[in-house]
């Protein structure tokens, strides 16, 4: 069952089929299109590159208790690339963190749900983000806190690949390795593009696997749209006592799942579909979901 609501604990490694997760990823894309239309501007293609990752984490991997968002034993999820929160809001509503009605206020003054997440406003957000490069440090603090307090939760941080150009990220990478934080997982949504163009044309970040490996992390490199691979990777993480933080390099396609955005990922980093374009995009995604 995908949508357990209330104070029940959603355990790690929930039973869900690949087809169900694929549908959830496309549903995230559809919801994103709707929310952006409502707000008037938004980050389509970055949200689409991370849709399978978010769907797998929230409907399969993370140990959660939506009825008790601050439950101390929950797995933490930090959205380093905070500009893809639009894809997370419908998921949190779907899981029961807040009423679905809240989505109707998305982007409006006074709404708890905006383009970037705010931990003080939205239940289910473990930390605010928006300023790139901070959240892997914050996640390192949360992983340290788990060890100090004897909790067995894991901390997952989703970063963009452009975000890795921020120097603070590497301070955190160094610290997590120094403190042997086997309870910390960094997921790089390596979609190859930043806001203004190809990531490594602006500042080369490759070879990513070798870089994380050199810093002492355990690296897994996978296709970030391959649901079985995501499930397998997140479902077989080393024990938290393993002494090595894990970096999952998810090779993705910016704009994945919508042909016009796959062809022009940069153009749809931030934008607004016309009514006609939106109808085509919705038809393309919905057609796959039947």
């Amino acid at each position, binding site marked *: 069952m995908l949508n357990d609501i209330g104070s029940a604990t959603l355990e790690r490694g929930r039973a869900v089929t690949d087809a169900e997760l694929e549908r959830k990823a496309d549903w995230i894309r559809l919801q994103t299109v709707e929310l952006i239309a409502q707000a008037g501007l938004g980050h389509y293609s970055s949200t689409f590159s991370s849709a399978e990752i978010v769907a797998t984490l929230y409907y399969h991997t993370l140990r959660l208790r939506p009825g008790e968002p601050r439950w*101390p034993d929950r797995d933490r999820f930090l959205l380093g690339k905070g500009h893809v929160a639009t894809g997370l809001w419908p998921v949190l509503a779907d899981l029961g963190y807040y009423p679905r009605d809240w989505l109707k206020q998305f982007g409006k003054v006074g709404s708890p749900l905006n383009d970037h997440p*705010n931990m003080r406003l939205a239940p289910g957000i473990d*930390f605010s983000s928006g300023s790139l490069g*901070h959240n892997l440090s914050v996640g390192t*603090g*949360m992983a*340290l*806190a788990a060890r100090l307090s004897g909790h067995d939760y894991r901390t997952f941080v989703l970063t963009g690949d452009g975000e890795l150009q921020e120097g603070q990220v590497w301070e*955190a990478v160094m610290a997590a390795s120094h403190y042997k934080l086997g309870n910390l997982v960094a997921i790089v949504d390596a979609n190859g593009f930043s806001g203004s163009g190809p990531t490594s044309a602006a500042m080369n970040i490759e070879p990513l696997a070798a870089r994380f490996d050199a810093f002492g992390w355990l690296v897994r490199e996978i296709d970030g749209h391959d649901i079985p691979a995501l499930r397998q990777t997140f479902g077989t993480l080393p024990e938290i006592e393993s002494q090595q933080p894990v970096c999952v390099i998810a090779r993705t396609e910016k704009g994945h799942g919508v042909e016009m955005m796959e062809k022009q990922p940069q153009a749809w980093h931030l934008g607004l579909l016309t009514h006609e374009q939106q109808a085509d995009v919705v038809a393309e995604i919905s057609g796959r979901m039947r």
Partner: protein
Amino acid sequence: MTSPTPTPKMVDVFSDIDRDTALKSNPSGYAVTELAAGDPRILTMTADLSNTLAEFREHFPERYVELGIAETNSVSVAAGLAACGYLPYIFSMAPFGVLKCAEQLRTDVDYNHLPVRLVGRLSGLAMGYFGTSHYAVEDIAIARMLANTTVVAPADANSVLSLMRATAGLDGPVYIRIAEAAEQVYDEVPEYGRGQWRHLRQGGDVTLAGHGMGVGLARQAADILQAEHGIEADVYDAAYLKPYDEAAIVATASRTGKVLTIEDHIGTGGLGTIVAETVARHRLTAGLASAALPDTDLEVGVPAELYEHYGLTAGGVVARALQLVQG
């Protein structure tokens, strides 16, 4: 009567390891060790300032987190720890802790109302001839712009202990600005009401209000003004810079009509600005002056000579007060 001058020595925090964590020599290290004994949530962190926490590390080795020379990371890591229920105290050189990390303090700590405490050692000109990179003279202006952050600048060792105790239980962020060159002001641990200034001396001719090392200077200057010039000064320890004591400012400005602020910070953005804003908002008529640092490129030298150069001595404060009083 000659005015006492601050110690000419540079402060060497890296040698704190050779000292015990005594209240006099290392008050912030002493205070956090005392507080940690009563609150298991307290952690300490530094970016290569571990020597300032020698005794803490001896007592609570598992509650000390060293993060190397990476201040920005240390603030965000602290935010993560605080979000999980801990009370992290970051010991940092003030210029790097506040100025380098201004955005992490704002975005990760202040906006999220997290109980991270930043203890800024070596504030103001304390790092003297190391150069202007090591000055923290804009830190108060930055810290007090953060909506949810409490900002305190203790006057001496007993004041550090008092204010660290007073702020330990707060739900939000705290910046504690340590003045290394402060002369002793209090024989015992003073009591501060939250956001309140301590009225150290009553006088009707001119107000002297300072924070950190400025409190000792104000008190010394008040003695000189009375003994040599027959001028009675109203003296305040303005340790609380956010929240600050609006009632005290209104009362003293109304009483004396002349307010001199004393701080090792640039003249804008700190205590001088707090007083000016308050006086203007209440439509008071008062002459204002400051013994502070100019809004220009600063000189480099050992602290005592810099303080002399910029008039941050008892004699310098007396001179500014006389100008203000005599118009």
